[in-house]
């Protein structure tokens, strides 16, 4: 507790104790009315002097409808009506509520700060005599060499130059399984070095490094407000004046009507009812709990490796109904591997050798996978006359043979008879000296959790899952069948993806949204066109962090379901709080107007509801089990 909170607590305890004594005193003895009044003023002023003072200053500045003013009027009114206990109690409970709110908000701020405790404070630089000097990481230029000892945080993104170790990325990705690093591995700031000493050459400035970027994003997240937050601001603007106006009417209108009809005016009864109105009028419960819920949800999610860039996206995420996936890098690993060599009449190794040499100048992932499958050093002197035919393949002269490697279009173009292949994947046909020599099948591996992720989304009530890919129809259908998506569109260029997403957007029902999940590379137009862009594998990819609304720090597709669940839980809590708080308040207003609810019930409607809503809002922080 901070000093201010301790002081408030002390005042509350003193006032409560005094009230107890006074209660007993007035019950068992017969004190003079004026003395009793004077005695009650002691706890009243102890607990409420600051509220009264603020109210007076507020009036001076024309701030009539703030909660201090309302509380002051309500309690002073009650005391004038000689309801001393109630007047003091309202002030006492109001202060308890304020204290509670301040502690709760402070605690969740602290919680989230702890969860996001990834900001590195220093970097070790080796001095000339070999000793380590701690410096401010902000002062280091990219390309500096830093030393990271076991137990320390990686301060700046970079590449390992010396040493091996394992890193704990859990603060960044939510994944607690350590990752092994060795020279040439890249490391992200915010990760914790577990075992060995590492020397790292930095590749970025501190401010551009992963940890700084994540923190910036999370801290700015709640500045993009959700609809329900804006609703609350508007609601609060009209609600308080409306209730105050109603209170004034309630205080004067019925007594005047009664006077006109010749009945007894019952002034004090109607004024008491009006005062109850004022006690209920503070919108604190909602005004505090709604931003607290979003803050907690965003904080909890980022701890699980899911960055949500604003409360508004939390809302969109909760309403997701259609999820569109990019195939490569999202549902599949994006590592192409040779999965089959169907050869004749050459031997497998010979076919691979020719293919590898033919493709040796290409940087295409397909070429890389063939080189990897060949696995032996190349002899560049054997290769000549390389010609790359875009969209078809490559022809070259290798070791005295005319070799062609490419798709069916290349074979047709060269007039070579080829066998079609039924394997799923990309097929590279080979022709040697004008004769067909078989083909190499290259396919992408599914991610471990892809199937589970799609099933999980279905289970979570997502109506439709769609997969888009630039790959051929057969591969696309194969992957789709394996993971279980509802709809597939294959052979797409990046622009076609936008068109298809637009068509799907038209089909989504009102109030429901479409999310596009991509790996952030080449996806920017689609990510921004969808209602919600989710980028995967954000760790280290600036493009993804920039373009998407939600960033999944690691590339596990299961996180999509988790993100949806976190958002839904958060929105559910927000809605419950709004309904509960407004409901209880309206009910109490009605009961107060007809005289059933007294000031004690009004106190519950104000402070009790606020405490319940805040406690409920704090639940948003807990997302581990979702």
């Amino acid at each position, binding site marked *: 507790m901070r000093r201010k909170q301790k002081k408030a607590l002390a005042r509350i305890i003193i006032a409560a104790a005094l009230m107890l004594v006074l209660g007993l005193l007035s019950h068992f003895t017969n004190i003079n009315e004026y003395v009793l009044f004077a005695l009650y003023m002691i706890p009243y002023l102890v607990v409420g002097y600051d509220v009264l003072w603020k109210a007076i200053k507020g009036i001076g500045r024309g701030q009539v409808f*703030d909660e201090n003013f309302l509380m002051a009027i309500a309690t002073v009114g009650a005391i004038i009506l000689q309801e001393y206990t109630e007047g003091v109690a309202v002030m006492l409970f109001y202060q308890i509520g304020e204290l509670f709110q301040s502690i709760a908000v402070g605690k969740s701020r602290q919680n989230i700060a702890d969860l996001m405790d990834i900001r590195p404070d220093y970097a070790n630089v080796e001095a000339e005599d070999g000793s380590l000097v701690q410096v401010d990481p902000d002062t280091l230029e990219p390309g500096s060499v830093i030393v990271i000892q076991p137990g320390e945080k990686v301060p700046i993104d970079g590449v390992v130059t010396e040493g091996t170790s394992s890193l704990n990325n859990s603060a960044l990705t939510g994944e607690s399984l350590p990752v092994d690093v060795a020279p040439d591995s890249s490391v992200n700031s915010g990760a914790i070095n577990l075992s060995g000493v590492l020397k790292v050459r930095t590749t970025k400035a501190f401010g551009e490094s992963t940890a700084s970027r994540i923190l910036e994003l999370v*801290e700015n997240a709640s500045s993009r407000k959700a609809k329900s937050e804006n609703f609350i601001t508007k609601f609060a603007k009209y609600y308080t004046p409306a209730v105050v106006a109603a209170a004034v009417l309630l205080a004067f209108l019925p007594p005047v009507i009664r006077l006109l009809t010749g009945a007894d005016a019952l002034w004090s009864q109607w004024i008491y009812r009006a005062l109850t109105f004022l006690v209920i009028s503070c919108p604190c419960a909602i005004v505090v709990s709604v931003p607290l819920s979003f803050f907690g949800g965003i904080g909890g999610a980022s701890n699980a490796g899911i960055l949500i860039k604003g409360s508004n996206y939390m809302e969109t995420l909760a309403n997701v109904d259609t999820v569109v996936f990019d195939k490569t890098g999202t549902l599949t690993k994006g590592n192409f591997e040779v999965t089959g060599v169907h050869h004749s009449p050459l031997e497998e190794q010979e076919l691979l050798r020719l293919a590898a040499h033919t493709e040796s100048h290409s940087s295409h992932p397909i070429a890389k996978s063939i080189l990897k499958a060949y696995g032996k050093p190349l002899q560049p002197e054997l290769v000549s006359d390389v010609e790359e035919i875009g969209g078809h393949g490559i022809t070259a002269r290798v070791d005295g043979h005319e070799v062609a490697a490419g798709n069916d279009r290349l074979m047709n173009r060269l007039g070579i008879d080829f066998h079609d292949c039924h394997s799923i994947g990309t097929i590279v046909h080979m022709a040697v000296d004008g004769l067909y020599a078989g083909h190499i099948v290259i396919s992408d591996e599914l991610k471990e959790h892809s199937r589970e992720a799609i099933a999980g989304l279905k289970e979570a009530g997502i109506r439709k899952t769609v997969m888009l890919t630039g790959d051929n129809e057969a591969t696309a259908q194969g992957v789709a069948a394996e993971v279980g998506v509802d709809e597939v569109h294959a052979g797409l260029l990046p622009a076609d993806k936008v068109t298809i997403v637009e068509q799907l957007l038209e089909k989504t029902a009102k109030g429901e949204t479409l999310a596009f999940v991509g790996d952030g590379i080449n996806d920017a137009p689609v990510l921004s066109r969808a209602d919600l862009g989710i980028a995967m594998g954000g760790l280290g990819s600036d493009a993804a962090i920039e373009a998407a609304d939600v960033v999944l720090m690691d590339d596990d597709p299961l996180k999509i379901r988790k993100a949806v669940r976190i958002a839904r839980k958060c929105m559910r809590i927000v809605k419950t709080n709004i309904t509960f708080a407004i409901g209880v308040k309206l009910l109490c207003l009605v009961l107060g107007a007809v005289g059933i609810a007294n000031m004690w019930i009004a106190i519950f409607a104000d402070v009790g509801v606020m405490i319940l809503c805040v406690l409920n809002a704090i639940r948003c922080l807990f997302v581990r089990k979702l």
Partner: protein
Amino acid sequence: MKTYKIFVDCANCANKMEEAVKKTDGIADANVNFMALKMNVEFEEGVDEKKVMKQALKNARKVDDDIEIDF
């Protein structure tokens, strides 16, 4: 857009503070984040930011005494 550290007591005060800062001359838009205790301010073009922030703080204090803005 600039980000300032702020201090404000209660969520409702934060809303009111946002309104007050928004209405300050020279400020195009402002956004108070109660939970992170931060405020994003967008200035109109060519204004003296320090001077504008001084006025903004003054306006904010009219709503609530306890408001602080670091600038």
